[in-house]
């Protein structure tokens, strides 16, 4: 598979109150980003269990991004602070195991930042496309 043909699978977890609304705003403003990004709506970034992220990689995702309200703006006041710690440690561990750190990302996107949402997604898809297929954390059974 050549670089040009490779279409990464990207899972984006978006919190309901800020980032999902930000994604909607990107749509309303017709801001383009690759169709490789598929969004899962969660109430808050703190709902995202590291298990979900590993699950995505297992099932063939090439990149996983978590978007939430900016720290301090969480609808639930403190959720994203916990998410921030959890993801920092998880990403650090993945990196420690030699899994490309560029495949995971956290971005804070507010409901007003439709443009930021599109920019972030374009950038993330570009990064993951350059990395190519996720080989280090794949489950071959799911690739059949």
């Amino acid at each position, binding site marked *: 598979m050549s670089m040009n043909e490779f279409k990464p699978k990207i899972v984006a977890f978006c919190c309901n109150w800020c980032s999902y609304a930000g994604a909607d705003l990107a749509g309303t403003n017709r801001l383009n980003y690759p169709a490789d990004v598929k969004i899962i709506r969660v109430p808050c970034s703190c709902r995202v269990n*590291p298990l979900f992220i590993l699950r995505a*990689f297992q099932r063939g995702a090439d990149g996983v991004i978590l978007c939430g309200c900016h720290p301090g703006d969480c609808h639930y006041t403190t959720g994203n*602070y916990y998410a921030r710690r959890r993801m920092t440690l998880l990403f650090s*561990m993945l*990196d420690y195991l030699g899994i490309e750190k560029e495949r995971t990302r956290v971005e804070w996107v507010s409901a007003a930042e439709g443009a930021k949402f599109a920019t972030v997604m374009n950038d993330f898809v570009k990064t993951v496309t350059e990395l190519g297929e996720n080989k280090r*954390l794949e489950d071959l059974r799911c690739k059949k």
Partner: protein
Amino acid sequence: MQEMMKARAKELLASGEVTRVIGWKKNEFDYDITPALFESAEEIDHDFVYDDFCGPNLSKFTFQHQKNDTKTLVFLKPCDSYSMTQLITEHRVNREALYLIGVPSYGKIDVEKIKADGMTGILSIKSEDGDVHVHTLYGDKTYAKYEVTSERCLNCKSKKHPIYDELMGFEGEVMENERFDEVAKLEAMTPEERFEFWRGELSRCIRCNACRNACPACTCETCIFDNPNSGVDQKAAKDTFEENMFHIIRAFHVAGRCTDCGECSRVCPQHIPLHLLNRKFIGDINKFYGTYQAGEEVGQRAPLTNFTKEDVEPDIVAKGGKV
């Protein structure tokens, strides 16, 4: 020390202060130590040991053998003491039903080191005055103790007892140590090298669950990996992904709660350096959120159930992890 401990245990049993004693006993070989419950002076006289092989962390054994209607005496090494404090913090053991005696640990011998040196047919091992005499069918050898001391003891984090009702020996101190050196070495490698390293290690895993079941932080009523309703249960790693998954998630679940007692690596039949996963989290927590030692104090708030507004952003990892 052993005799003092036996005497005190018998005294407390006789006075009725406690009805049960948790300690260690010897099994087939000098180096075979089993955690044990003693209920009489006779049992203590006959079986109780405390020596340089008493590696097993008694806090997990205590957790498994809790009884609320009576008081149990537990002997704790400093490591066990930290684990016990953490269990108390998490309401997993009832402090009221325990009588804790802190005992010093002068470094435990890792028999695997002796075996890895090619020693086999071991008939006896004696640890005396800094020397370890190994007597085998094929000849004898004497080691300086530090040569055969377990990694976790060479890198001892603390000789202090964060909790006790009574202390035997000395009041230890938190130790200077190099326990993060190995982690740093791995961190200095390229991602490819790290990947190869961990694949090599984790691919040996047989998912026997010894690490989990021996771990004093792993006390879940049902582990998610055993729960068919969790959606992530697995009995054996069918794919390399599952090897990674089990160890990442296990390390994550004990992150901020792991006291670095080293039982996981001690019990691993495949010699996987599992403590290096836990230490990575401990090191990161120290670096990102300020030094934190799980089990240092009853009631501490674990780093993953805490935050500050100024916490580092997750992209610190992409930036090389430097704070």
